[in-house]
């Protein structure tokens, strides 16, 4: 069963519980300078008409259907998990060339200086395969972040899903 991350910015307060969940799940050591895969943003942005928008956003890899990072990787580290549809990786042969970061419009792949390899959110692939929620989703108290089966997502036609953002950014192939 394939899954889709759904984010509702109206329910997000940028409390960063999702970030803590990500850090905990992936054993990040903040003191080493290693950053979690998920990030939250809280910014006031001036819009084109001069009004202001208060943005509360939680973001990580969007697990694009046609993920450009996969094609960009010269050593084939990235792939789609056929079961979950998440963009996963095996960085054994990663050369740290940062081509995946260059391809990603969301800034999801990140260079890890300690071993010179790229890392990214894998959707908590193993958790989801085991029937659990991704750590960030589990940590979200407000229901702003969800991970739903693709069929459910398509049936709901949610206008707030991450994949709507992907469409807005023109990332689907013609």
């Amino acid at each position, binding site marked *: 069963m394939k899954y889709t991350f759904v984010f509702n910015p109206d329910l997000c307060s940028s409390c960063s519980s999702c970030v803590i969940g990500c850090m905990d799940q992936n054993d990040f050591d903040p003191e080493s300078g290693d950053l979690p895969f998920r990030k939250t943003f809280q910014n006031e942005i001036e819009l084109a008409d001069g009004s202001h928008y208060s943005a509360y956003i939680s973001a990580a890899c969007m697990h694009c259907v046609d993920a450009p990072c996969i*094609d960009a990787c010269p*050593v084939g580290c990235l792939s789609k998990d056929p079961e979950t549809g998440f963009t996963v990786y095996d960085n054994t042969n990663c050369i740290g060339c940062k081509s995946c970061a260059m391809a990603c419009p969301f800034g999801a792949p990140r260079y890890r200086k300690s071993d010179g390899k790229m890392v990214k959110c894998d959707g908590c692939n193993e958790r989801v395969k085991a029937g659990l929620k991704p750590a960030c989703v589990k940590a979200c108290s407000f229901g702003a972040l969800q991970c739903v089966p693709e069929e459910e997502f398509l049936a709901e036609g949610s206008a707030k899903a991450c994949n709507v953002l992907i469409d807005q950014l*023109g990332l689907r192939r013609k």
Partner: protein
Amino acid sequence: MNKYAIVGFGCAGYHAAEKIRSRDQEAVIDVYSDTDIGPYNPMLTTYFVKGSLPYEGMFPFGSLEECEKKLNLHIKKECPVTAVDGENRMICCADGTKEQYDRILLSTGASALKPPIPGLSLPGVFTMRTAEDAVRLKERIASGKLKTALVIGASWVGIKVVEDFVEAKVATTLVDGAPWMFYVAAFEETARRAKEDLEKKGVRVSLCQMLDHIEANADGTLTAFMKSGDTFTADTIGVCIGVRTNTGFLKDSGIAMNRGILVNSRMQTNLPGIYAAGDCVEAKDIQSGQPKNIGVWYNAGRQGEVAGENMAGGFMEFDANILVNLAHYLDYDFICVGDVSACGPEDEYYEYEDEKLYIKACKNGQKIKCINMIGSADANGVVKNIFIKTIETPEAEIDVKSVCYLLTNGFPEAFISFLRRK
């Protein structure tokens, strides 16, 4: 039963074969390769030399045999194509055989440029493009006999070869004919910073140096004589001055070409049934609207997919062709998005520098022309996508998430305003 030919089996050829096979299980797919090794990425050669990657790692799709089996191909190894009869879609091989096809893909890639300058064939003078080039250099470095090296060409490959030598503690000099490094991509101010960084890391850099010829010395060293009158002596000399598309065999084919094969957004050439993809083509650059040869792995893969899909009866377009250069070497990141040569004194410039980040960008009215950034690696894709969107939909605002991302990652508000063309 449809019969396809793929001439040249690198990234573009592999992706096209994969796409054709996914749409047409019965098709006969003949692959013509001038080597006996699997598709590989020329960019990986320097990583193999440095030891970041095992030899097998250069072949992300496996060996020719594995590709043949996986995609049910007929691979003709070490079978260079010498001519294409474009009107009749006929492939002519060096051994005299001829074969007609329903569809042909030309994906022959590019080769290291080796101009007819005296001395370039001397032992110890090398180029870096093929897996064989990489094996040879790795062995020479491993021998411990190289104490000094000269790299001619501050190109994307040249700088990686410099990195290989520095990592191996070989005293290295980098020379280039242009007045500053990365001349086709960098503003002068960006290049000056890159040069200073390289010099701090022990690399001697000399610019405005055009090669006249190379001579071998009695003690086994080589001397490069420059048109300026300067000379540079080293144990080995790398010539990394660019690439040339592998299209010589198409001279009388009737296929339209500039420096590369001209294609439309569906990767079709001017002749029906003949497609081209990868480093040998000139596809439309979305910034200038003109055909441009932009040879990067990502483009090759996507172009191969697009060609394969269209060859097999589908419809797909390649529309992301823009000049993007990424140099990552010796713990230094430089990216250029857009065409620096399109920038002039009449344009508006933005410049910013702090301890981690350097940005220089150029625009004219609503049109962003070029962005240089040093030290921005994780955000490169975000900025590149904003750049593309300003070309595709000039009236659109930058999406909120991208603005948040840049602000949170230390990009100044003034830069975002510049990108928003406010």
